[in-house]
């Protein structure tokens, strides 16, 4: 009987420790917000459009290909949306559809037969959950910025492209899936808008109509006299 009591007395501290640890873990899990990570899931279509008579170099720098948007929403947690890894496929398929020929390049100046270089960047990303907007939709906005250079690396034109995508909460079981679908829709929107409007950009149209010439180099600020 005494032995039994001693055994119980020996076991009690370890039992209490386990209980306390479990309680602490529960409290910690309640206080800690985990970041939900999501990446774009799906494939991008090739635009069905009359091709521009341009052999284009596409320069995707590391800032774009590793672009991740992190946002924390009060009482809803944090989200990390990795948009960068999908940009290569997105711009690859876009280029197949709208340019006569294309190649991914590392620099802004290229050799013939390429006529110029297109450099896309993501300037800003925003998203909203249905609970924030009191609507049925997950929404994603991506602000793209495009720069076009001639083959010597001289700027021809630059323009902004705001893209928007939404996904109804009735179609997706979780917030992660809903945001993923909205982000995909925003990327498709960017592709659609770019496909239709690339050759309508006044400076781009003029450059193409003039035979894609080398542009005059911008004045060097250090040589300018005051």
């Amino acid at each position, binding site marked *: 009987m005494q032995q039994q009591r001693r055994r119980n007395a020996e076991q009690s501290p370890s039992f209490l420790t386990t209980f306390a640890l479990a309680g602490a873990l529960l409290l910690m899990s309640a206080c800690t917000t985990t970041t939900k990570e999501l990446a774009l899931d799906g494939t991008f*279509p*090739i*635009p*069905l*459009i*009359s091709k521009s008579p341009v052999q284009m170099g596409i320069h995707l720098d590391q800032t774009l290909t590793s672009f991740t948007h992190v946002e924390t929403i009060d009482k809803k947690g944090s989200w990390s949306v990795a948009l960068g890894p999908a940009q290569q496929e997105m711009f690859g398929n876009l280029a197949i559809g709208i340019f006569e020929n294309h190649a991914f390049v590392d620099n802004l100046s290229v050799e013939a037969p390429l006529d110029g270089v297109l450099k896309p960047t993501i300037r800003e990303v925003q998203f909203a959950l249905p609970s924030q907007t009191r*609507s*049925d939709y997950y929404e994603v906005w991506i602000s793209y910025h495009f720069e076009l250079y001639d083959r010597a690396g001289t700027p021809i034109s630059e323009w902004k492209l705001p893209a*928007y995508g*939404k996904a*109804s909460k*009735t*179609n997706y079981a979780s917030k992660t899936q809903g945001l993923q679908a909205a982000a995909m*829709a925003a990327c*498709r*929107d960017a*592709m*659609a*808008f770019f*496909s*239709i409007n690339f050759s309508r950009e006044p400076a781009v149209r003029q450059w193409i109509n003039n035979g894609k010439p080398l542009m005059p180099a911008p004045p060097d600020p250090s040589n300018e006299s005051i």
Partner: protein
Amino acid sequence: MNQTIRILNHSAKIAAIAITIMVSGCVTATVQQVRQTETAMTAEDSVVVIGRRNRPSQGEAELDFIDCVSRNMSSGGNGVQVISENQFMDALFPWFEPRTAPLNTNDLPALLRQPILAQRIREIGLKYLVWLDGRTKRTSQGGSMSCTITPGGGGCFGFLTWENDSSYEASIWDAHTARTAGRVSSDAAGTSYVPALVIPIPLIARVQTSACVSLAEQLKTFIQSGA
């Protein structure tokens, strides 16, 4: 012995029918159509059912409803060839995206004048475009239920009820003539119940399924029946 088995089989059938009636709530469905032009399909022709997404609408049709209508239109003895929404959107990208899709048939001729687009439509054999608009929503709900679990067992007690209302409209465009062929609408309403006396028994009214099946059947009849 054989007679006993036959009586048991008969009882099982009656029980199965009774359970089926019991576990599904009542649904009232109404289908209406307006025809503007004659319609016809050949074996090579196909149809696509797509949801309207090009405006900030509160009535965006659910993806599973669009899928349900497509599946029901392609099944059965009078089934037609249906292209999936995703396949169509990708094949004709970027012309039917939310930002670029034509809002009405007035925008279609300009689109179809593009040789590359007209050729792709011929390749996939598209004859009719069915735009779907609408949604299923819960219009009312009531009742309460409480459940208890004890070491000796558990159970629920109470009564829940809710009413769902489905309202969808399909606008049918002729891709060959670039004109509206007509409209078909489907409305369904039904009340679901969950009485619980120890075990909850859900009596679910399949409102959306009913709207889907009746809309798909009417669409099939509409595009195949001609004038």
